[in-house]
């Protein structure tokens, strides 16, 4: 038994050394350290959107690009056309795994930091997002029109954002930027990628996550509505009947 304990002790010791070594090597290379002001955005009763502070430091000079990707869902885009004077949906296209949120911020205009082929490879900018149409037989220019409309629609809702030159340096080594989530933001895990570019190529990259979730009464109501829909519906009707009756009672007395 004592032998076993000593063995596991040394195991932990070794592991500790490895971890510490890994960390110190990263710092020694120097490069890029990032963190967020909060790891969880809580959606509560008063939620009107939320702003997060992303901050970090660099050892060597270079430009910073921050990309935030929301959870992915399948999306249908429909196009209206005029038929006999009336606008009606005539055609539609389905896109799979479309991010519900996409924000990109950088310390300089993106075009001056990152060459086009790099932007395409790393999917930097909404126009470079891989958004495959579910039906591959559609003509390419048609797909492009629907893709543009999808991005345009999301931009109108502030769910897709491109804010060049909003990553600001404090001194030479510290940088910061604000990430804005509007109140219509979807719940889920958001991936944050921070790139450092030097001479048009990636010098460093760091990933972190932020979780957006409902808390308190909001979360409980949502959970109840989705897990026991029938009971929720009956309760909603009972509350409505009670409210109607109460209002009547109050008005009769006055």
């Amino acid at each position, binding site marked *: 038994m004592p032998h076993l304990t000593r063995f596991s002790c040394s195991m932990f010791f070794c592991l500790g050394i490895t971890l510490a070594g890994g960390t110190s090597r990263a710092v020694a290379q120097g490069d890029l350290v990032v963190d967020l002001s909060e790891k969880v955005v809580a959606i509560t009763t008063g939620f009107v959107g939320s702003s997060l502070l992303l901050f970090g430091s660099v050892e060597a000079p270079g430009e910073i690009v921050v990309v935030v990707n929301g959870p992915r869902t399948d999306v249908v885009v429909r196009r209206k056309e005029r038929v006999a004077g009336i606008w009606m949906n005539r055609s539609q296209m389905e896109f799979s795994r479309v991010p519900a949120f996409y924000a990109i911020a950088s310390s300089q205009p993106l075009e001056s930091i990152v060459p086009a082929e790099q932007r395409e490879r790393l999917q930097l900018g909404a126009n470079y997002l891989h958004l495959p149409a579910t039906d591959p037989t559609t003509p390419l220019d048609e797909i492009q029109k629907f893709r543009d409309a999808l991005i345009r629609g999301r931009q109108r809702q502030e769910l897709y954002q491109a804010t060049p030159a909003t990553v600001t340096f404090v001194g030479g080594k510290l940088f910061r930027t604000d990430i804005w989530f509007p109140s219509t933001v979807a719940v889920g895990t958001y991936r944050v990628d921070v790139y450092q570019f030097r001479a048009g190529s990636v010098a460093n990259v760091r990933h972190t996550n932020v979780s957006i979730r409902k808390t308190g009464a909001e979360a409980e109501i949502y959970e109840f509505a989705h897990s026991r829909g029938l009971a929720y519906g009956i309760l909603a009707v009972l509350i409505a009947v009670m409210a*109607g009756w109460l*209002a009547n009672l109050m008005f009769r007395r006055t």
Partner: protein
Amino acid sequence: MQIYLPIAEMSVNILVILGMGGVVGLVSGLFGVGGGFLMTPLLIFIGIPPAVAVATEANQIVAASVSGVLAHWRRGNVDFRMGVMLLIGGIVGSAFGVWLFTLLRELGQIDLVIRLSFVVFLGTIGLLMLWESTRTILRRRQHIPTKHHHHNWLHGLPFKMRFRKSRLYISALLPLTVGLIVGVLSAIMGVGGGFIMVPAMIYVLGMPTSIVVGTSLFQIIFVTANVTVLQAATNYTVDIVLALLLLIGGVVGAQIGARFSNRLPGEQLRGLLALMVIAVCIKLVFDLIAVPVDPYNIAEALSL
């Protein structure tokens, strides 16, 4: 003052919602319509997802109608016998309507069908009511006596029943059929159906206007309660926070409306409702023919 809605997943201004509830509640108590034909477009207009707007509105109409019925019942303005007959037809009709809704959705174009049926029904009913009430008002001024109700082939149908409150002796088939048709339409259009029911009761059944309002509200309670439970169980689209805000404004408005409706003469009441119905209709027509901001629109893909 903003509040986050857990099911709609967005934040809204509390005062805007309370105000909307109050105004629509007033209309509801005044005319005996649930108000869904006004509230549902308004909710969509402020950005609530249409599926949530339709389901939550049904829930709110339950409260407004209960409040309204109690107020009318105290004044003896509810014909329960007629209400039950309409309701039986309504339940059968709405079951058929839900089936039809699903079919139309599978074929696509459900949105267009909803809008077009609103335009057709609101337009027809609004113009008919406006014409009729104007004629009555003009005749009264010229002291031309009006007949209480006309006798036609509808009064020759079998299974006659006496509706004492409505002072009618007509076939039970008439209210059953009216309820059935209104049930189908209300399931497709996502409203209580009062704006169709009220004119049908006046012009087809020949009921007195004072009884129509309370009886229509009585029937609407059950139709919308049914819709609320079905929507909550199948689509999870009833937002109870939004419904509560709407009904706080709505029940108060409905009470005030019910008081006014006893003071205003019937034909003026009908004329007012007609103008409101026509206004909503014109707005819908405009939306259908105006060039959209963006011809493309985005929706979550339905996972089947």
